[in-house]
């Protein structure tokens, strides 16, 4: 995913960059995302889904990506506002993406629901990865005005 994905959109604010190097960082990220979702007026269910998706992806970054960072961006279009979360690592990358996106597939003893689950829980999902080139997963949740 190149930078043009971000630059063609309007931003309400600069990205907030949060480290994902420890378990505590994942907890902090959940809080931050929750606070932003509340501020943007998302319902409780929307908040729960998005924070859960964020938790899954943050954990992936930590466990499989060797640590990395999350970018939190508030977004706005003419008729909607939203939150965009990117989870970025410079780890090994995913060799077989189709396999990784299958429910239940795990390379690390997890439940294998992180990527596929996050895709279901968010409105938009994009992943950019290649062996040896790290992984960036981006999810967006929108709220209509």
């Amino acid at each position, binding site marked *: 995913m190149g930078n043009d994905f971000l630059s063609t959109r309007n931003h309400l604010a600069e990205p907030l960059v949060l480290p994902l190097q420890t378990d505590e960082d994942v*907890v902090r990220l959940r809080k931050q995302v929750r606070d932003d979702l509340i501020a943007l007026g998302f319902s409780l269910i929307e908040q*729960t*889904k998005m924070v859960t998706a964020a*938790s*899954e992806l943050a954990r992936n970054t930590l466990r499989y990506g060797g640590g990395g960072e999350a970018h939190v961006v508030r977004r706005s279009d003419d008729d909607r506002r939203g939150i965009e979360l990117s989870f970025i690592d410079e780890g090994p990358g995913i060799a077989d993406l189709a396999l990784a996106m299958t429910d239940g597939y795990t390379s690390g003893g997890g*439940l294998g629901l992180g990527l596929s689950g996050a895709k279901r829980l968010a409105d938009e999902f994009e992943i950019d990865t290649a062996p040896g080139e790290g992984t960036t997963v981006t999810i967006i949740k929108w709220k209509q005005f």
Partner: protein
Amino acid sequence: MERIPILRMGRLLLVTIQVDMHDRLAMALQEDLTTRIVKDRANGVLIDISALDIVDSFIGRMISDTAAMAKILDAKTVLVGMQPAVAITLVELGLTLEGVSTALNVELGIKMLEQRN
């Protein structure tokens, strides 16, 4: 690292999760519960998650694994107080919590576990 307290009530163990657990804390809880089931010869475990507004696949896995270990040790596990938004999200996430019974609240959960005796 702090640990989540586990209370004993007769042959039952009760645990209320009131913090947003990081992964290490969740694993410590799983270990502690398993150890206590043996030590206290418990035959029931009640896990109260009414204060949790997020249950992701790691926590879900911890709960399922705890229930599976408890079962091997001849103890039943009941999960109580799941928030509706959490239940909805778990279904969408595809998390099924195999081997875990559920009840609406602590009182009903205890009744369920006591019925076993």
